């Protein structure tokens, strides 16, 4: 058993530009998502429809639920509220559930009269058609005893809790005072919503006490654990099925209230499949978001640009119902050299809906602030921004002191500069105008940790005639897992990809960790490699048909002696209309150092996709809470803008060769999140180069340029 080593696989299938194995099903619309299972699986046939009733107050108590008119509507099967909903049995099972425990208060749906945020589920209707369910939900009357609420984020308030001390090295204040050049500025990012194109959806049937759940999720086994605990069932009595997931970006990485509601309804209506799909509007209240940040970044350097002080004092907010802190300071903690370092977070507690992970949690806003501040420092030092980063490349991790398993930032900057055409750039801002457009270019670095989660298992079975079946309860949320894991399995078994049939997305398969933290491919791939090697050890390369073996990855490759991260560099060209402030981004180019690339086709898509979401973050995305009511008011695609096709110009992704024998047997680092980190900063820096205006608050809307 080779659990603790990262003996590198010989790459044959890995690295091949393989078409997605799930591609044909997707382009022809034949891939079944969670809400469509009635058409594919007889267990989901003839479902009832759930429509939630949401609170119209932000804090207080439900004093009465009037369900009579709704219940009288023909076709209504049930009206649920805290008065009649089945009781849940939450547990603090933190050792088991890893990223979420079942006593998470977000999940205690219809368990009390307490209202903790506007939009919280306070009742629900189940009916035979979606139209009837929606109309009946409208007829449910809810009386409240409202209490004063606080939904206003006031980052400058003196009443905020004391900040955490996350990193404290040396004396930043003294180093700033002694520095020849300093940057001390506040950078802000707004609330952003994940908004996967597939709204959160569940089809569930409870039969004979067992739950069968079709769910769009990033982690079928975590969903199973949570539901088993909440509903007092043995885990074996809960099956969660989600082979196709219409995007998640973190919002489907843990269990949210609508899934619990669906299981409550299924419990009341035993034997009948029930289903729920959120409306786009409900997506802004019930499944999380990225909290806002205000980041006071301090950088101090000598006259040659060598950094002596790095500080990021972050202010953000959390729901009082469930604590979630956007760790935006983490980027400044690890990115550049500097002996004095101070990172902390102040967290305002508000009566608002719970937040969650959104693509590159912490690093997306953190690298925006840090990388814009670095651009300001470069300007203040009179240095090219690439040269500034070269001068502050740390030999070892600045906090842990550990060597990097590999660190390719400088290669990415160099390769990107060459591909983008950076050389000879005139650093002066605001001096290039073409046909009424001010033109500029900018650069920023990107990063995301590389790690492997313990706990995934994989099963290898030889089906005969050269065919292997490889099973793991992993998820493909668009990331390419179907294809990349097939390639890894083929190399681990030393067979062509055609001889591997992969199964994923079902809790009946061996347990798998979440598709999150850019750790999916590393965690599942390592489990598959371990199982394949054990299979070959036990059964040889000419096994008997039906030979089968399952192993659990208890201990991932030991990386404790190393700091493990992927790095990258993005370059952007920005045009700002001189008379209107309109912003266009004709070019974004990224180069990444992420170890071995398993499948160049799907990898390029992930990196391009991350950068595209970064453009959207830079230019468009902002959720606005009305503090009088406590909910997001721009809760649809007409007012919460995500980048459309015409917003995106030429986006290119490349990678440098990087050999990392430490991270896992594939030598591969995760790539799902790094693309979004840095991109917004590159765009903001390019806009400064174009106009001379330094934007420190996202989104970079045109009013920033109208003075």
């Amino acid at each position, binding site marked *: 058993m080779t659990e603790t080593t990262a003996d590198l696989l010989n790459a044959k299938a890995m690295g091949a530009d393989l078409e997605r194995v799930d591609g044909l099903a997707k382009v*022809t619309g034949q891939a079944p998502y969670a809400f469509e299972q009635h058409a594919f699986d007889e267990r989901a046939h003839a479902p009832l429809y759930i429509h939630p009733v949401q609170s119209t107050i932000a804090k207080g108590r439900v004093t009465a639920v009037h369900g009579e008119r709704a219940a009288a509507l023909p076709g209504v099967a049930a009206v649920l509220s805290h008065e009649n909903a089945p009781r849940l049995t939450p547990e603090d099972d933190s050792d088991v559930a890893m990223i979420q425990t079942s006593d998470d208060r977000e999940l205690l749906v219809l368990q009390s009269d307490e209202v903790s945020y506007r939009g919280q589920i306070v009742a629900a209707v189940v009916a035979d*058609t*979606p139209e009837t369910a929606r109309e009946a939900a409208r007829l449910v009357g809810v009386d409240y005893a409202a209490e004063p609420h606080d939904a206003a984020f006031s980052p400058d308030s003196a009443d905020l809790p004391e900040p955490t001390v996350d990193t404290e090295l040396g004396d930043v204040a003294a180093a700033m005072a002694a520095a020849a050049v300093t940057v001390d500025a506040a950078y802000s990012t707004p609330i952003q919503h994940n908004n996967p*194109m597939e709204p959160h959806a569940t089809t569930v049937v409870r039969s004979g006490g067992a739950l069968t759940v079709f769910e769009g999720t990033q982690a079928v086994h975590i969903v199973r654990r949570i539901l088993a605990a909440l509903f007092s069932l043995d885990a074996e009595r809960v099956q969660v099925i989600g082979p196709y997931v219409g995007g998640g970006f973190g919002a489907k990485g843990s269990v949210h209230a609508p899934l619990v509601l669906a299981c409550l309804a299924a419990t009341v209506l035993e034997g009948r499949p029930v289903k729920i799909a959120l409306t786009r509007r409900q997506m802004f209240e019930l499944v999380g978001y990225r909290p806002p940040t205000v980041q006071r970044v301090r950088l101090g350097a000598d006259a040659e640009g060598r950094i002596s002080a790095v500080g990021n004092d972050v202010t953000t907010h959390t729901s009082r119902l469930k604590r979630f802190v956007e760790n935006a300071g983490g980027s400044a903690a690890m990115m550049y050299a500097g002996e004095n370092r101070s990172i902390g977070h102040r967290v305002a507690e508000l009566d608002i809906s719970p937040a969650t992970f959104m693509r590159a949690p912490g690093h997306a806003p953190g690298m925006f602030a840090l990388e814009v501040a670095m651009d300001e420092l470069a300007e203040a030092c009179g240095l090219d921004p690439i040269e500034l980063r070269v001068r502050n490349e740390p030999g070892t991790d600045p906090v842990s002191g550990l060597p990097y398993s590999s660190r390719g930032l400088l290669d990415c900057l160099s390769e990107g500069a060459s591909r983008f055409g950076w050389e000879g750039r005139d650093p002066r801002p605001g001096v290039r105008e073409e046909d009424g457009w001010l033109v500029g270019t900018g650069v920023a670095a990107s990063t995301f940790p590389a790690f492997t989660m313990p706990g995934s298992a994989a099963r290898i079975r030889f089906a005969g005639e050269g065919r292997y079946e490889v099973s793991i309860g992993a998820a493909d949320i*668009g990331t390419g897992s179907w294809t990349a894991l097939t390639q890894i399995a083929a190399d681990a078994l030393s067979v062509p990809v055609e001889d591997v049939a992969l199964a994923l997305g079902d809790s009946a398969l061996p347990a798998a960790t979440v598709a999150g933290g850019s750790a999916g491919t590393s965690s599942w791939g390592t489990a598959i490699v371990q199982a394949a090697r054990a299979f070959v050890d036990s059964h040889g390369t000419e096994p008997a048909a039906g030979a089968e073996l399952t192993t659990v990855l208890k201990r991932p490759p030991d990386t404790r002696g190393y700091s493990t991260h992927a790095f990258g560099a993005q370059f952007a060209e920005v045009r700002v209309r001189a008379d209107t402030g309109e912003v266009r981004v004709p070019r974004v180019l990224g180069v990444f150092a992420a170890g071995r690339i398993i499948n160049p086709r799907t990898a*390029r898509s992930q990196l391009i*996709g991350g950068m595209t979401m970064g453009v959207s973050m830079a230019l468009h995305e902002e959720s606005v809470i009305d503090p009088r009511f406590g909910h997001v008011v721009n809760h649809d695609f007409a007012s919460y803008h*995500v980048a459309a096709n015409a917003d*995106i110009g030429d*986006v290119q992704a490349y990678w440098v060769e990087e050999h990392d024998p430490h991270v896992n047997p594939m030598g591969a680092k995760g790539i799902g999140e790094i693309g979004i980190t840095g991109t917004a900063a590159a765009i903001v820096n390019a806009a400064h180069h174009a106009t001379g205006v330094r934007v420190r608050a996202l989104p970079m809307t045109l009013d920033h340029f109208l003075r």
Partner: protein
Amino acid sequence: MEADVTLRVDGTTRVVRVDTRTTLLDALREKLDATAPKKGCDHGQCGACTVLLNGRRVNACLTFAVAQDGAEVVTAAGLGADGAPHRVQRAFLDNDGFQCGYCTPGQVCSAVGMLEEAAAGWPSAATGDVAAEPVLDDAEIRERMSGNLCRCGAYVNIVAAVREAAADSAGNTGNTDSADSVTSEAAPAGGAEVR
């Protein structure tokens, strides 16, 4: 209130009883098990539900089923022929013009409808000279495909796929026997002939 509606969906005539509040999208997905068109917003803001309705691309969430009695509907499931994907679908596969796949059936239908619009000489907001034949450069493709949101961020690959399919169809000009072409001549019921 309910009504019986006859729809021709992906080449098959279907009669379905619908609540008069039922959208075409919900009738397809919930009543007829035609789940290729997706629901992403139900407000006509995302395009995931795009189908070809009587030969033209529409958001199926923005029209009631009862208003489309006798219509011809083609979804992404009905675009290909003889078990092979449509050339636009092939181009999406070749260019990896999708990731999670949820917006994809709508993107594909939108692209097929858009290529027909361009071939018919329809200008877009990105067309410089609206009197001239539109040329499907990247700016035109981006503009004409902007009714279909993709949160995975596959736009550059979608543009590449549509560019490739457009070049194919330009090469096929005059080939009326093309197995996967969608014509917009009015059919007897106001629908389009889809082959």
